[in-house]
C-alpha cells in the first residue's frame, strides 16, 4: 500500500533512537531494522546502552540508544553522525544531541519535556524553547499525548498506555521512510498473544504514529523519504548480531568436525549472548554449562576436549585474564579448545558495555612462559560465523587452543547476513586416534606437528598427560634439558605452521602497493573500509588490508606491507597490533588509536589518511 506523498530519494540514512532504558528503544530499533531489511536495504545497527540494568527514569546515565544506518548502497558501519535523532526525553536529547550531524533532524516527544524531567537531565532551561536546537531541524510532537489518545480505548492504565510511545514513534519513522507496518503488526500479535489488549494498544499506537505522518503534512515539510533496495547478492537473508553468529558458527563448526559441542562459560558483558543463544540449542545436542567462574569454565572445556568433544569457552577481557593459567595447560596438554573473547573497555571493570580492541596483547602474550597459540579475529557480526568455524578447524587440526577476538560492538551490532547452506560447507571430520600400535601421546604428525587425539574410552590407548614437560617421543614426564628445548621449539613451530594453512593476506580495497596501506583487524573493518572507499573514489592512493589471522600472521604480510610507503593501523587500543607488526617486520607502522569506548567514525579515519597523504 504505497502512499502517494512525494518522497525525497536518499542513498543512505542514519537514524538514532534514544530514550530512557525503560522506553523500549532497543525494541523499536530492532523492529525498524527488521522492516528495513525486508525492504531490501543494506544496513548496520549498533546498540549503546547503559551499564545499569534499569537506571532511574530520566537520568542521563540511563539513556539507551539504538542506531541504524541503512541504504541502497552497501553499508559498512552503523554510521558516523546520525541524520535523524529520535529523543524520547530531555536526558536523551542532552546526551545524544552532540552526536547529530549539523542540520540533522531532531524528533522529540515534547510531552516528555516537563520541568521535572528537564531538571533531572540537568537542563537549566528548556532546549526546545531557548534556541538550543538552532543548528538542527526539529520535529516537536507531543507523542505522549497522541499516544494516550490513540490507545484510550484499550483499557490500559495511563502508565501502561504511555509505554506505547515507542510504537507511536516507530509508526512515525516507518511512515517517514515508507516502511511497511504489517510485519511489525504481525510480530506484536505474536508477542502479546497472551495479552491481546496490549497487542491492540501497541498496534493502535503504531498506526496512529504512521497516520500522523500521512496527515500532518510532514511530506510537505520535507520529512518523507525513500531509500531504494540495495544491490545485494541474491539469496536468503536474515539479520544477525555478532553474538548469535558466533554461537551458530560454533554449532556448525562442531557439526562439520563431527564433534559434540560442550560450551562452558561464566556470564559477563558482552559475552553472555553467546551462552544464552547456545543454551537454547539443546535440541541440537549442544551442551552448555554455566560454571562457577571463568577458571572453572575453561577447565570444564579442557576436560570436555580431553574427553573427545569440542570444548569451547567464552568471556570478555577480565575473564580471559582469569583463564590464562588454564590456557597454559591447554597449550601444554595440546588439546583443541576455542576461547571466545568479546572485548570491552578496560582496564579492569572499565566501561563494561563499551567497545574496545585492547585484548590483543593479552591473547597473544598473556600467559606464563612461552605458550604459543592461535588468535583469530572477527570483523563484523556476520563474519563471526566464519571466524568461529575457522577457529574450530584450526583447533582440532593442530590440537591447540584458538582465541577468537570479537568485541562489544560486534557482539551487539546487527547486519543482514546471507544464510549459508550448511550442507555446502566443507567438512573437516575429526579422526580420534584408535590404533594402539605405535601410539605415543605426544608423537607428532609430521606435517601439522599435532599430537594424536586419543580419547578416554578407547581401549588400548590408556595414557597419562599433564602440564609437566613431556618427552618428545614417549610423552612421559621429562626434565631433560635438550628435550625441553626441542618441545618448546616444536610447540612454537606447530603454531607458526598454521600460517601455511591460511589464505595469504589479500587487499580488501585498492592496489597491492602504493603510498599508504590502512591495516585493520576486527570491528574497525566497517569504518576503514568506508573511509578508504570514499578516498579512493576521490582518487587517493590508499589501500585497505584487513587481518583475520592475528597469530600467526599471514606469511606474505611482511612483504605486502613492504610495498607501501606508509602503513597506518587504526585500532581501538593504544597500539597493540602495531607492536606486533613492528616487531614482526621491523616496518615503520604507525598507529591511529582511539580508546573512548566508541567505534571509529569514518571521518576520523579519512582525516588521518588525508594527513598521511598530505591530501
Amino acid at each position, binding site marked *: 500500500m504505497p502512499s502517494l506523498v512525494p518522497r525525497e530519494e536518499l542513498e543512505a540514512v542514519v537514524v538514532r533512537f534514544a530514550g530512557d532504558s525503560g522506553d523500549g528503544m532497543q525494541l523499536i530499533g530492532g523492529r525498524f531494522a527488521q522492516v528495513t531489511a525486508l525492504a531490501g536495504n543494506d544496513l548496520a545497527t549498533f546498540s549503546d546502552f547503559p551499564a545499569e540494568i534499569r537506571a532511574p527514569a530520566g537520568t542521563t546515565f540511563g539513556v539507551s540508544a539504538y542506531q541504524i544506518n541503512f541504504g541502497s548502497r552497501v553499508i559498512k558501519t552503523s554510521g558516523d553522525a546520525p541524520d535523524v535523532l529520535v529523543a524520547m526525553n530531555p536526558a536523551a536529547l542532552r546526551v545524544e544531541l552532540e552526536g547529530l550531524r549539523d542540520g540533522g533532524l531532531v524528533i522529540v516527544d515534547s510531552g516528555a519535556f516537563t520541568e521535572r524531567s528537564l531538571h533531572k537531565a540537568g537542563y537549566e532551561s528548556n532546549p526546545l524553547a531557548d534556541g538550543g536546537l538552532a543548528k538542527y531541524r526539529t520535529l516537536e510532537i507531543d507523542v505522549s499525548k497522541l499516544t494516550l489518545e490513540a490507545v484510550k480505548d484499550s483499557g490500559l492504565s495511563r502508565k501502561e498506555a504511555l509505554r506505547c510511545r515507542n510504537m507511536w514513534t516507530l509508526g512515525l519513522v516507518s511512515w517517514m521512510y515508507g516502511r511497511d507496518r504489517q510485519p511489525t503488526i504481525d510480530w506484536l500479535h505474536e508477542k502479546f498473544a497472551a495479552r491481546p489488549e496490549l497487542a491492540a494498544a501497541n498496534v493502535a499506537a503504531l498506526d496512529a504514529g504512521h497516520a500522523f505522518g500521512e496527515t500532518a503534512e510532514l511530506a510537505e515539510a520535507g520529512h518523507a523519504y525513500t531509500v531504494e533496495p540495495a544491490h545485494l547478492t541474491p539469496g536468503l537473508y*536474515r539479520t544477525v548480531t555478532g553474538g548469535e553468529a558466533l554461537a551458530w558458527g560454533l554449532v556448525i563448526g562442531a557439526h562439520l568436525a563431527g564433534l559434540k559441542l*560442550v560450551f562452558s562459560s561464566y556470564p559477563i558483558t558482552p559475552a553472555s549472548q553467546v551462552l544464552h543463544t547456545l543454551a537454547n*540449542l539443546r535440541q*541440537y545436542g549442544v551442551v552448555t554449562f554455566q560454571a562457577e567462574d571463568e577458571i572453572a569454565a575453561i577447565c570444564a572445556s579442557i576436560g*570436555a576436549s580431553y574427553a573427545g568433544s569440542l570444548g569451547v569457552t567464552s568471556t570478555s577481557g577480565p575473564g580471559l585474564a582469569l583463564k590464562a593459567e588454564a590456557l597454559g*595447560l591447554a597449550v601444554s596438554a595440546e588439546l583443541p579448545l576455542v576461547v571466545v573473547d568479546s572485548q570491552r573497555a578496560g582496564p579492569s571493570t572499565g566501561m563494561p558495555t563499551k567497545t574496545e580492541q585492547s585484548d590483543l596483547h593479552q591473547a597473544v602474550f598473556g600467559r606464563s612462559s612461552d605458550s604459543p597459540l592461535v588468535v583469530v579475529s572477527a570483523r563484523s557480526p556476520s563474519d563471526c560465523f566464519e571466524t568461529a568455524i575457522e577457529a574450530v578447524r584450526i583447533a582440532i587440526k593442530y590440537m591447540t587452543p584458538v582465541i577468537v577476538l570479537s568485541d562489544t560492538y560486534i557482539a551487539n551490532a546487527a547486519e543482514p547476513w546471507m544464510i549459508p547452506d550448511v550442507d555446502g560447507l566443507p567438512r573437516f571430520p575429526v579422526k580420534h586416534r584408535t590404533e594402539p600400535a605405535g601410539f605415543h601421546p605426544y608423537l607428532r604428525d609430521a606435517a601439522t606437528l599435532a599430537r594424536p587425539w586419543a580419547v578416554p574410552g578407547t581401549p588400548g590407548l590408556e595414557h597419562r598427560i599433564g602440564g609437566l614437560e613431556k618427552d618428545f617421543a614417549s610423552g612421559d614426564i621429562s626434565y631433560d634439558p635438550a628435550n625441553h628445548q626441542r618441545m618448546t621449539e616444536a610447540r612454537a613451530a606447530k603454531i607458526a605452521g598454521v600460517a601455511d594453512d591460511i589464505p595469504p593476506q589479500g587487499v580488501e580495497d585498492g592496489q597491492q602497493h602504493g603510498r599508504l596501506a590502512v591495516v585493520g583487524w576486527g570491528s574497525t573493518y566497517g569504518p576503514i573500509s568506508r573511509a578508504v572507499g570514499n578516498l579512493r573514489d576521490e582518487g587517493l592512493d590508499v589501500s585497505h588490508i584487513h587481518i583475520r589471522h592475528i597469530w600467526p600472521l599471514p606469511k606474505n604480510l611482511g612483504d605486502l606491507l613492504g610495498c607501501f610507503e606508509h602503513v597506518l593501523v587504526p585500532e581501538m587500543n593504544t597500539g597493540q597490533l602495531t607492536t606486533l607488526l613492528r616487531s614482526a617486520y621491523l616496518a615503520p607502522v604507525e598507529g591511529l588509536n582511539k580508546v573512548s569506548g566508541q567505534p571509529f567514525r569514518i571521518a576520523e579515519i579519512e582525516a588521518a589518511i588525508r594527513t598521511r597523504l598530505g591530501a
Partner: protein
Amino acid sequence: MHSVMPVEKLAPQDFASDQEVRWCPGCGDYAILKALLRTLAEIGATKEKTVFISGIGCASRFPYYISSYGFHTIHGRAPAIATGVKLANPDLDVWVVVGDGDGLSIGGNHMLHVLRRNVDMQILLFNNEVYGLTKGQYSPTSRMGTRSPSTPQGSVENPVSAAAFALGSGGRFVARSVDTLRDHLPEVLKRAHAHRGASFVEIFQNCLVYNDGVFADFTAKEVAADAQIHVAHGRPLVFGADRGRGLRLNPGAIELEAVTIGEDGVREADVLVHDETNRTLATMLAAMEPPHLPVALGVLYCDPAPSYERSVMAQIDEATSRLPNGDLNALLRQGHTWRVEA
C-alpha cells in the same frame, strides 16, 4: 542371541602403570595407591573407561601410577576439569585425586560447586594437613599452632574440616578413611564408586617428611580402638577395644557424647544407630575430635540424588527427541528471513 564375551577380570597389579613411583619412601600415598589398585580390581573396572584426574601436589601424582586414562592438570582445578569430562562423556568412570591444599585451598570453590551440583565422580582428598610438594608449609587443614616454614611462630588459623565443608556444600556422599586401614579404605572406596553423584572421600594420609605422625592421636595402634569409630548404616555407633563404648545424643544440648555401655546406667539401646541419610547426624559425626570423642570413619553420609550430568543429558534427550533430525539449516533460518532476488 548376542554372545557376551566373558570379560577377563583384572587383578590389582594390572592397574599399575609402568611409571616409576616418585613419592618419598614411606609416604602414606603408597598405601592409598595399593588400596585403589585393589578397589579397581574388585569393582571390575575397565582400564579404558577409567579416568583419573588430579591437580598439583604429591597426591596429584596419582594418575601416573594407574594404567588407565589420566590427566595431571593444574593446581586446584581437577573438579572443574572432571566436570567437563563428564559432560563430554557421562559413561566414563571418573576419579579425582587431590591434596588438602589442592582441594581445599586453591581449589575450594570448585569443590563446593562440584559437590552441590552432584556431578558423578569419586573425589579422593588426601589430607596430610600440609603442603607436601612445596616443602612443608601449613595447609588449610593444619591445626592451629602448626609450625611450618610460613608459620614459624605457629599458625593462627582455624582449620577447615574437610567433611564438614563437604556437608555444608551440599555433598551427598561424604566418607572418611585412613591410608593405613588396609581393608577399611577399599571398602569405603567401593561405596564411593557405587554412589551415583559426587562422592567425597577424605583420606587421612601421613606425610612422613613434613608432618610425620600428625594423625597419631587417632591412628596409632595403641589408641586407635578408642580414638576411632567406624560407622556403618543401620548399625549402632559403638567403638572401643571391646566395642564397649558408644555415642549417645544429648538432646538438651543437641550434641553427641561418648558413653561407656554398662556404666552410669547406659544401656546398649541408648546408643545411637547410624543413619547415613541424616545430614545433621553426619555433621555431628564429622565434627568429633579426640580426645573427648573418637574420629568418625566410614560413610558418614550418603543420600543419593540425580547427578548433574545425567540431568543435563536428560534435558538434551528430551529436547532432541522433540526435534529428531536436528536440521542445522533450519536453525539458521529460524525467525525473520527474506530473499533477495537476482
